[in-house]
Every structure is written in C-alpha cells, then in structure tokens.
C-alpha cells in the first residue's frame, strides 16, 4: 500500500522568513525589515538574555527531574527563539494560551519559573494567575487550547478591544501548539471558528519536526503554514531558530489581529533538540545526524554571532548574562526543593466554587482516617 504522489503535485520548498542566518549574518528582507526597524541594540541584548535564561531554566529543570525533584519535564531545548521572538512581540494586554512546553514564553510574561516546576513536580496543576500574567494555564490535552484562545479572542472582539487604534487597548490572543497538534479536530475547528468570526487570534505552531516519535510526514503532506489558505486566512513560515524573524513575523500577525483583520497561522520551523519529555528515548526513532545538523542552526549561537559581528555586545555582557543565568538557576533549585507537598485534604478545596455536602463528608472522612494514624503513632 504505497501512495504515489504525482511529481508535479510536489510543491517547491516553501519560503522561510529568515533575517539572521545560522552564522549570525543579518540578511535583508523586503517586507519584514520594516517590522523590526525600531529594534535597538538594547532590545537584541534583552532578547539574548531571554534566550539564555530560558535555556538555563530548562536545563536546570531537566537536571532536577534526573535528581528526582520533578516527576517529569518537557524540554524546550532548540525552541527558544520561536518562543522568545513571539513572546517579545506581545503587548502587555495580549493573552497567551500555551501548551506544556512554552517555558520561555512564560518567563517573558513574568511567570515565576518555580511555578512551572511546581506543576511538573506534582504539587499543583498551574499556580500562576492568568489574569495577572496574561499567560493562561498549561494545556496537556493536545490542541484544546487553540479553541480556548479563539473563544477568548471572540470575547475581546465583543468588548470592542480591537481596531480602535489605541495601542494600549487593542488586544491580540496567541495560541501555541505543535506540529502534531495540527491533526487534532479541535485545532481544525479553531481554524474554522477563527476564520468565520474573524477572531483576533494568532495560531503559533512550533513545528519542531516531531510529535513524540512521529515525524512530520505522519501529520501532513503539505507544509503546515499552507493549511491556513484553505481555512481562509494567511499563513507564513518563519525560521523558528531566528529570534529576529520570529519577532518580525509575530509582530505583523499580532497587529493584524489587534487591527481587526483576523487570524494568522505562523509556522515556526524549528527542531526539538531534546527528548520529547524526560521519559522519552529519542534514540529509538531518530538519527543522531539529524540532531547534529540542527545544532548548526542553534537559536542562541546565531544571535551571539550576530551581536559579536555587529559590535552589539562585548565579553563583559555575555559574562553578565551567564552570571544572571547562574543566579537564576541556583535560586530555582533551592526554591524547587523547598516547595511543600500539598496537604492531602487540599484535594477537596476547589472542585466547585462551593463545596458540596458529599465532598464535605468525604473530606471529613479523610481527616478522621488520617488522624487515626496520628493517634496510633502517638500511642
């Protein structure tokens, strides 16, 4: 059962928006240059710091998982530029609906990274306040959040918070998801809804080439960004390892949303350099050569090369970022280890707005039961 594809049906390699080559060379772009014309050396240094801190938090979490401090961790290694570039294109009032891997986006939104670790440690299921950070809770069921983002955007639309021209009022919503997620019904429904109602939402797909062990070909026969055309909105593929290009493309898409022009699909073409999660063993399904190839496109190295080339930073700057990362890591380790386990009866606390009589009774039964052990010990 081999399916033949007619040669003429094979599309040419799609265009990839790139502003920084893997060697850190700034390549001009007819359209996207204008979108980052205002980006200063300070901005680039700040994004470099975001990238390094994001990677450091991630590496620290992987280590903590190995030491038994976390139950699991989903590493973002390799996807830092896609996350930082898109997150730094957001305005304060914009809202983010993440998957479980958007740790660098979370950092950019001001979420305390200890809270990310708390979730993976198993002390809670998301303790940050989405109203405060505009970074919603992690979603583990693949694709579900794309509909939430679309619905949220419909609310924004009804509140008249788009197309007013007020840069502090007009609001965009961004949904993050993976290449595998594009197969889910929910994601396709989100595309349809967003298109039909012209919702102010950006669908930001980090195509990291893999859905656990399944390569992209198991999910699609066309480049993902091209799917948008069929749903009736623009799609663009950006070099996901190029933070400047991700910033530019995201800025444009988010502004379209804020201006009331509707959804955009951004496909950030990147690579999952680590395992799917700490329980995964990628040597079972992919070649090391692939990883080596992508290492040459490292998202942090190219910004660094660019900064050195353009005299945007000296060694003292890089050292200071390194030091910040080290400090963050030290604090994070200590804070993670100090996270208290939840009290057993806390499981009854927020099932409903008001506890039901049944749950009150179950809580009492648990308390009595646990107390009986304490009494035994005391005796």
């Amino acid at each position: 059962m081999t399916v033949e594809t007619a040669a003429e049906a094979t599309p040419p390699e799609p265009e990839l928006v790139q502003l920084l080559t893997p060697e850190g060379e700034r390549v001009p772009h007819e359209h996207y240059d204008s979108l980052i014309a205002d980006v200063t050396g300070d901005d680039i240094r700040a994004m470099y710091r975001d990238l390094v801190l994001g990677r450091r938090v991630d590496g620290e979490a992987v280590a903590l998982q190995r030491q038994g401090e976390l139950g699991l961790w989903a590493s973002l290694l390799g996807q830092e530029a896609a996350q930082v570039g898109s997150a730094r294109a957001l305005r304060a009032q914009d809202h983010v609906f993440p998957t479980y891997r958007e740790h660098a986006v979370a950092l950019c939104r001001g979420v305390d990274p200890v809270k990310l670790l708390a979730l993976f440690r198993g002390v809670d299921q998301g303790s940050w306040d989405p109203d405060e950070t505009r970074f919603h809770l992690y979603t583990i069921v693949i694709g579900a959040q794309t509909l939430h983002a679309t619905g949220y955007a419909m609310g924004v639309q009804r509140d008249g918070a788009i197309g007013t021209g007020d840069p502090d009022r007009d609001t965009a919503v961004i949904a993050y998801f993976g290449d595998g997620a594009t197969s889910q019904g929910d994601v396709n429904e989100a595309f349809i809804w967003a298109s039909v109602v012209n919702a102010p939402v950006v669908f930001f797909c980090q195509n990291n080439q893999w859905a656990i062990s399944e390569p992209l070909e198991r999910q699609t026969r066309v480049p993902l960004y091209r799917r948008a055309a069929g749903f009736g909105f623009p799609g663009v593929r950006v070099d996901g390892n190029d933070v400047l290009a991700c910033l530019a493309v995201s800025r444009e898409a988010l502004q379209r949303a804020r201006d009331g022009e509707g959804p955009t699909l951004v496909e950030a073409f990147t690579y999952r350099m680590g395992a799917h999660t700490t329980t995964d063993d990628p040597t079972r399904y992919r070649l090391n050569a692939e990883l080596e190839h992508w290492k040459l496109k490292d998202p942090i190295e190219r910004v660094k090369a660019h900064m050195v080339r353009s005299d945007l930073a000296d060694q003292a700057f890089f050292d200071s970022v390194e030091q910040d990362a080290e400090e963050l890591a030290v604090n994070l380790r200590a804070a993670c280890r100090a996270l208290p386990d939840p009290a057993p009866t806390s499981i009854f606390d927020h099932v409903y707005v008001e506890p039901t009589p049944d749950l009150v009774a179950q809580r009492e039964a648990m308390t009595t039961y646990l107390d009986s052990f304490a009494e035994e010990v005391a005796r």
Partner: protein
Amino acid sequence: MTALNITKAINAGLRRSMESDAKVLVMGEDVGKLGGVFRVTDGLQKDFGEDRVIDTPLAESGIIGTAVGLALRGYRPVCEIQFDGFVFPGYDQIVNQVAKMHFRSGGRLRLPIVIRIPYGGSIGAVEHHSESPEATFAHIPGLKVVTCSNPLDAYWMIQQAIQLDDPVVFFEPKRRYYEKAEVDVDGEPDLPLESARVALPGTDATVAAYGPMVKTCLDAAAAASDDGRSLEVIDLRSLSPLDLRAVYDSVRRTGRLVVVHEAHRTLGVGAEVAARVTEECFYSLEAPVQRVTGYDTPYPPARVEEEYLPDLDRVLDAVDRTFAY
C-alpha cells in the same frame, strides 16, 4: 512457561493474534517504531509492516473513527489510546458510533474493535495521565469493558478480546505494567473473557477489585491473614458485562463485602456491585457493602496521589468496618 510482565504479555498476545489472523491491525500514536510509550507494541511494526501497525496522526477521534471504517471493511483494529485522559477526543466516536452500530443495523454490522487504554494512577504523572474512566464506558450499552490485573490474564484476555465480534474497551493497569509472572504461552485460557476469577480464596470477608487494585487487595489479604483474618479476593476482570456469580457465592459464605477501585466513588463500578449484591444476597449480608475508592475530586497532583488512591490500609479499614456491624 515464560516469565512475562504485563506489557510483554500483551505484546505476545497481540503478536499471536496478528499471526493467526491477517485482518488484525494495530493503530495508534507512536505504536510503530517507538513501540508505544509503554513499549506494549514493541517490535510489531518491524515484524508485521507499516500496513498492519499504523502510526496514526495525532487525533483520537480519527483513530476510533477510521477503525470503524476498517472494521466495516472486514478488519479487526486494535486501537491504542496513549493515556486514559486522551480517550475523550475519541469518546463521541466510541459512544455514538462504535457502541451502537450493531444495534442500529439490526445486527447486520459488527465492529470487532479493541480499544486499549492504559489507565490508573500512582505513576507520578502530570494531569490526564492517571485517570480511571472505566465506569463511563461500562455505562454505555453495546461496549464490552474488561481489565486485566496480571500477565497471565493480560496475555489471554487481549487475544479473547480481539476474537470477539463486539467492540471491547480493554483497560490496562499501567502501574502494574512491569509486574512479572510465569505465563504458559502455548496453553489454553482457563476462563472465558467475560468472567470474574477468585484471586485468593478466603472465609471471613470478600474483597472485590479489578485491574491495578487486585494486587493492593492481595497485599491487604496477606496483612489481614497475619492478624488471623481470612479475606477472599475476587478479580472482577469484566466490568461489562459484569460477572458477579463468584461475588454472590463468596458473599453468601462471608456475609461481608468490600469493593475497591481507583475511580471516583459516585456512580462507579462499586455502586453497581453494591446494588446487585444487595438485590441478590440481602439475607446473607452481615454489614452494608463498603466501597474503597478514589475521592470525588479530579485526579490530584502527583504529590498527593497516594492519599487519593486506595491502599492496603484503607482496604483493611473498610474490612474492619464490615466487622463493626
């Protein structure tokens, strides 16, 4: 005899089914090269090819929906759902299509589909990876729902489920996946699929459980026997149809019943068992049927899951309650 854990036993059962019937297919996320996230389908794609062991797109409704079509075309799909919480995108297909096809076609159309679901907690996972949704399937007429608790049953029950012409939801106790036992892979199954089994004979009280809780109850029985109390442990195995003959027989002798499951309490399997035992064995009962279950809360974060889940002590506590009457 071969020493197998549950993952290897199911793997061996799948392999035998695929060898003896070319219509048997395996499909799901990551079931091919990776062999599934629990390695239950390890090596099957290599040996049976990509046509028969299909790495599907990431879409559970698609997995079940296309299995319906394949079954209508004469295939016998075995669908793997990666984790319990991820069956729900496919729930519509299961409840509205899979369960009803035979009925609405007046018996003309059969859907010999097996839906394998690793279920239950105690693995330290994040959300949606530790659910016990069996009652939400056992409640649906047209679906058969079974669950194994040990390698021997796993080996035979998966083969029996595949041979059945009705759709079967096959729950696998993921926390027990790596428990080993000797399995006679060439013998014959000693029980039909839809039957319970006395896992441990006893005389003083009856404990009914299934899947991951069978071992917990056997451990409880061992502890109880140190205190001079003999518990009879029954592994229900089939939740739909529910085979309670062994439970009735046992309760008529012991007069005391404790039902144990990880799933929530309200409207769970334990409630159904209690109701039927009350109907059938009313005059034999010395105490109300006790349930030891997960609480009626969402599955909690990993660091409190052991307090949420029934354990040996909670089982013994319930046994004590039946003696307090």
